[in-house]
């Protein structure tokens, strides 16, 4: 026997074709992608997208996968960022039938599946919901019922991404609660949480530290920093808290 030395295969660039575009909010849309040869993924992982222009200029960015591993196609959810380079193109220009390169799945830490166990505690801000949605969709797709709670901060009711689907998931009676937090504008009849996620809210809404929930936090840096720090202060084991952030320049 010779020593086993297997070089990892390079994560290949694949061609994705846009099959469907879903307008989620005025500034956010989901691209549903057909990716021949897609090897599958775990909820929470991301892909790198590479766009090549007519002059040969290429740019790449990372996007969380929003679809469950059980879904037939890979979905990413893109927020239009005015100063961005790739996101405005994906969020405004792309039409069904367009093709571009991607590779993945990437990342082995910010991942959760039902095999990981529960309770599952998710904190999202804005388009940070995307990788957490992959977890909730996966949980529903396999019929799991461990306790799960999503605390989701949006600027306004119109800015809630996946609003109808989250309502359906929460109404299924399988142990999922969804708590919406609106930070800027509220509907006149809004009775829910209406300020930034803070310590009082997390103390009241999170599973107690004694239940040792798996915590995933994704959103803008300020939200992630503050929520993670607060949960540690409330007694949650920092090793159970996993974070993913994006700043204004991230996507």
């Amino acid at each position, binding site marked *: 026997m010779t020593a086993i030395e297997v*070089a*990892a*295969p*390079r*994560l290949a*660039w694949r*061609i994705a074709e846009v099959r469907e575009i879903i307008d989620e909010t005025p500034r956010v849309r989901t691209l549903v992608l057909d990716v021949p040869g897609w090897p599958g993924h775990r909820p929470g992982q991301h892909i*790198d997208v*590479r*766009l*090549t*222009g*007519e*002059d040969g*200029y*290429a*740019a*790449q*960015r*990372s996007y969380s996968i929003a679809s469950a591993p059980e879904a037939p196609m890979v979905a990413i959810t893109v927020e239009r960022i005015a100063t961005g*380079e790739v996101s405005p*193109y994906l969020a405004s*220009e*792309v039409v069904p039938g*367009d*093709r*571009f*390169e991607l590779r993945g799945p*990437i*990342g*082995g*830490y*910010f991942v959760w599946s039902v095999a990981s166990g529960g309770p599952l505690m998710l904190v999202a801000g804005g388009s940070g919901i995307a990788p957490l949605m992959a977890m909730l969709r996966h949980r529903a797709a396999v019929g799991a019922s461990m306790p799960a709670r999503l605390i989701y901060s949006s600027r306004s009711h119109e800015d809630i991404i996946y609003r109808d689907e989250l309502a359906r998931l929460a109404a299924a009676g399988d142990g999922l609660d969804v708590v919406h937090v609106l930070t800027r504008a509220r509907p006149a009849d809004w009775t829910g949480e209406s300020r930034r996620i803070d310590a009082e809210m997390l103390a009241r809404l999170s599973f107690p530290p004694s239940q040792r929930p798996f915590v995933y936090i994704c959103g803008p*840096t300020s939200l992630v*920093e503050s929520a*993670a*720090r607060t*949960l*540690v202060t409330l007694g949650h084991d*920092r*090793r159970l*808290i*996993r*974070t993913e*952030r*994006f*700043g*204004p*320049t*991230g996507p």
Partner: protein
Amino acid sequence: MNEPPISRGFRARQRPPGTRDRVPPGQHLVSDFPVLSAGPTPEADLASWRFGLDDGASPFAEWTWAEFNALPQTEITVDIHCVTTWSKLDTRWRGVTIDDLLAAAGLSEAPDAFVMAHCEGGYTTNMPVADLVDGKAMVATHFDDEPLDPEHGGPARLLVPHLYFWKSAKWIRRLQFIPEDQPGFWEENGYHMYGDPWREQRYDGD
């Protein structure tokens, strides 16, 4: 190799002049300083803070916060490149070079060929010693003349600017010299063992 599909109407944003040859392939410039970490930002207690060099068994040297700040200070201005595709030019740091740390520990050269960096919170990352010495790297305590913010790795982070920025481990507490290269945290999770941005070594196999 197959030609990539062309995205009609997709074009580059304008770049500051003179920066093209400073941006590695697949990277884009940012002017702010994004934060990326896998977990909560640790609270630093400077009274109990220690930084050390060891081989996994015996320590070669260990410094308190006061002792560390009394070591020779070096200021450098460098470009940094994050694997998530942002690059930031001309970032200004101050800290203690690995060369000066080795000298202060009484070591004429590093005891092994590789290093595992260990951080508060359990984060680790690996690299060859050759990438840390000869002025290539430091343990940085200041950014833009200000004490390093906790979310950017304060009180002290490793700074290895010629590799992707996950190698510049935040909240550094010790450098362990090891005879053979071993994967650290992200390297165990699909990222490249070395991470040269100019060769676009983002993920395992790149």
